[in-house]
């Protein structure tokens, strides 16, 4: 039985480790100063996809990412951890996409893949924090969706059962396939790179990368077809140009503000049992902890 799992993943600037050069003078993110990393919640999504794959005979996991040429790294990284391959959607026509244009482009690319049983994406990316792309892709493809997934509990050829993490507890829901699910950061961490897979796939490359590298391994790609990462431009997907890139992006950034956190009020505790207890109560009540 062929069972296709597709992970939507994004390469993002590492906004968790910001240095002093993280923002430009105009208030926009200085991408050059930040390392490009695998969006953390997309790694949680990949782990769920890989676990699902191990439960279903004949299942495969592929990764779709949209971005510049270097975003192929996301696909290789996924292969090092157990994905079977991936597709890079790349081209200047996609530049400047907001969530609407991004989800449109991704949906067009997914249609090209034919039948996909489960689409798994991270809840949101750390460079935008919108949590919109996954749900929008589902809407555009006319698929049902389950958000805030913490664990895929069960799945057969027609149904998937998922545990969702909500603000005040968990919820178990079941839905028909094909289905799109978005995965929370509270889901299990992604497995590490696997040594043998890393050695096996380290030469995997897109056409652009092969052309640019002047690699010594030309015959390698004919004898090992799994090393060829598919790269799609606009011409490979059926689309309406007005919905792509800047023209397809109604979001306009009006203003960006640097927020500097400062301590506004402070409280001094002497360390008595009573004070500690009331502090704990306060923190639990306002959901700082617990």
């Amino acid at each position, binding site marked *: 039985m062929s069972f296709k799992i597709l992970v939507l993943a994004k390469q993002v600037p590492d906004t968790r480790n910001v240095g002093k050069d993280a923002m430009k003078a105009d208030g926009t993110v200085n991408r050059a100063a930040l390392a490009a990393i695998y969006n953390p919640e997309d790694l949680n999504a990949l782990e769920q996809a890989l676990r699902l794959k191990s439960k279903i005979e004949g299942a495969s996991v592929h990764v779709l990412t949209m971005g510049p040429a270097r975003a192929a790294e996301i696909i290789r990284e996924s292969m090092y951890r157990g994905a079977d391959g991936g597709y890079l959607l790349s081209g200047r026509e996609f530049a400047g996409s907001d969530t609407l244009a991004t989800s449109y482009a991704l949906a067009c690319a997914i249609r090209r893949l034919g039948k996909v049983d489960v689409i798994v994406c991270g809840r949101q990316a750390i460079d935008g924090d919108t949590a919109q792309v996954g749900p929008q892709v589902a809407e555009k493809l006319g698929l049902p969706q389950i958000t805030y997934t913490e664990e895929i509990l069960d799945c057969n050829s027609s149904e998937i059962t998922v545990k969702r993490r909500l603000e005040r507890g968990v919820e178990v829901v079941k839905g028909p396939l094909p289905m799109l699910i978005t995965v929370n950061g509270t889901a299990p961490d992604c497995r*590490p*790179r696997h*040594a*043998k897979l*890393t*050695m*096996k796939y*380290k030469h995997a490359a897109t056409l652009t990368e092969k052309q640019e590298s002047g690699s010594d391994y030309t015959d390698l790609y004919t004898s*090992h077809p799994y090393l060829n990462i598919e790269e799609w431009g606009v011409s490979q997907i059926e689309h309406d140009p007005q919905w792509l890139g800047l023209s397809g992006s109604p979001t306009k950034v009006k203003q960006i503000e640097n927020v500097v956190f400062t301590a506004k009020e402070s409280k001094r505790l002497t360390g008595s049992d009573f004070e500690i207890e009331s502090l704990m109560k306060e923190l639990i009540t306002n959901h700082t902890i617990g």
Partner: protein
Amino acid sequence: MNFFNDNPTLKFQLSHPLMPKIVALKERNFAEKDKYDYASRDFEDAVDNYEKVLEIIGGICGDVIAPNAESVDHDGPEVINSRVKYARGTQENHEALTKAGVYGITLPRQYGGLNFPMVAYVMSGEMVSRADAGFANIWGLQDCAETISEFASDDIKNEFLPLVCDGATCSMDLTEPDAGSDLQAVQLKATYNEQDGLWYLNGVKRFITNGDAQIKLVLARSEDGTNDGRGLSYFVAENKHDHTVLVRRIENKLGIKGSPTCELVFTNTPARMVGTRRMGLIKYVMSLMNGARLGIGAQSVGLSSAAYIEALNYARERRQFGKAIIEFPAVFEMVSIIKAKLDASRALLYETTRFVDIYKAYEAIEVERKLSAEEKADYKEYSKLADALTPMLKMFSSEYANQNAYDTIQVHGGSGFMKDYACERLFRDARIMTIYEGTSQLQVVAAIRHVTTGNYLKIIHDYDAQPIKVEFSSFRKRLQIMTNLFANSVNRVNEIKNQEYTDFQARRLVEMAGHIIMSYLLFIDATRDKEDQFRKSAEVYLNFGEVEVRRHAAFIKTFDVENVDVYKV
């Protein structure tokens, strides 16, 4: 944190001029490149593979093992129903490494291994130990598989080696209540059963690291009525947790608390013999111990590396009298000496490992085909070099791990004595390293013949013949003077022709050779290195070692045979 990427001295070792030879031998000129999709295609590809896999291990060290170290030290393993339950962190560490598919790192690909040379394995050991020296034992015991791979029958290899690659843990069950340093006294009994062709083990083992492991290599007495090393054979048993091997207790130790040290009771444990009967101690355990000593070298260097980082960071952050304490000569000298001892022991670690790699590769090739006369000579040469440097490495690196942990606490002052800082754990963890796998005193016993036969002197002369930067010429002159002092001291001790006197002076002589060898290695590294990472350590170590050599030379020069009696108690 990635313990491989943040330490450029490791990559530097992978670029050593002997590496092409090591890789070519290990890969049999890349014969498997079309057989396995992960096999290396050429030298550059191989080194790139080592780096990529070491990066995976370095990431697990930084993100999983190191953060778990404190809780593992605190919780430790426990015995439940005669079985060991690892601390939560230990379990997590082992799972992460298993998931990454890095166990069986040196084993042949046909058994699921990665077929990496020892240099890469030792590097992984260094990183794991830097993260948690106690856990380094559990990681390092995969070394047991090396002796299975080298000496066992194909049947045994096919059965056990894939298990190791899948993350089965190992233990080497050698010591007993009355057989510690003196393994000839081992009493655990092995009885052959003709009906099923298996051996059955009965008896008690003590101080067995990771004793509840799945795969056990056991030294046992196969010859009834014997009482020396020639009655011992070597066995492999799979611990199926069916009550034939029970953990009676685990020791409550000073350090490496995460590593369970077990007392085991064997009751009719089915086992299979590895290699030839009666050769257990003489051949296989000796080989196992040589591997284990290299492992302790890696563990010691890893601990020194952790100690140096703790000392340096604290000395930079801590302010007293209006400035960071690292600005005070008393502190910066201490930190520099920690670094010099770390760099010196690391240089010796990888030099030794390269020699081991070459002779082990020849040993494996010899099983496949006849070696040419030239190869045989090369094999013998590297075997001798490895034999000479291994005990020296084990002694120096473990002593320096202790000295460095001690000094790191000193740099921390009162805070270092508290449980709040990692250095007190490092200090406790380091303590065993000069003891297990042969005490420092026993390393001297193994090393002294290389002093008296002139092996060390020959090694030193070979290093002296290597080119070094012109600016280091004055250091070379000092090293030559130190070499003369060493040679004169050796001559004096040899001339007296008194075994007890030689034994009495042995450690001093081995130390003199060690200081000279490590100084040369650092200057040779500093010459090859373009990043200038070793120049300071080379000079600091030379200053330190020179005084030690002069001190020992002076002691030996004025010390006569009869003076030994003063020390007799």
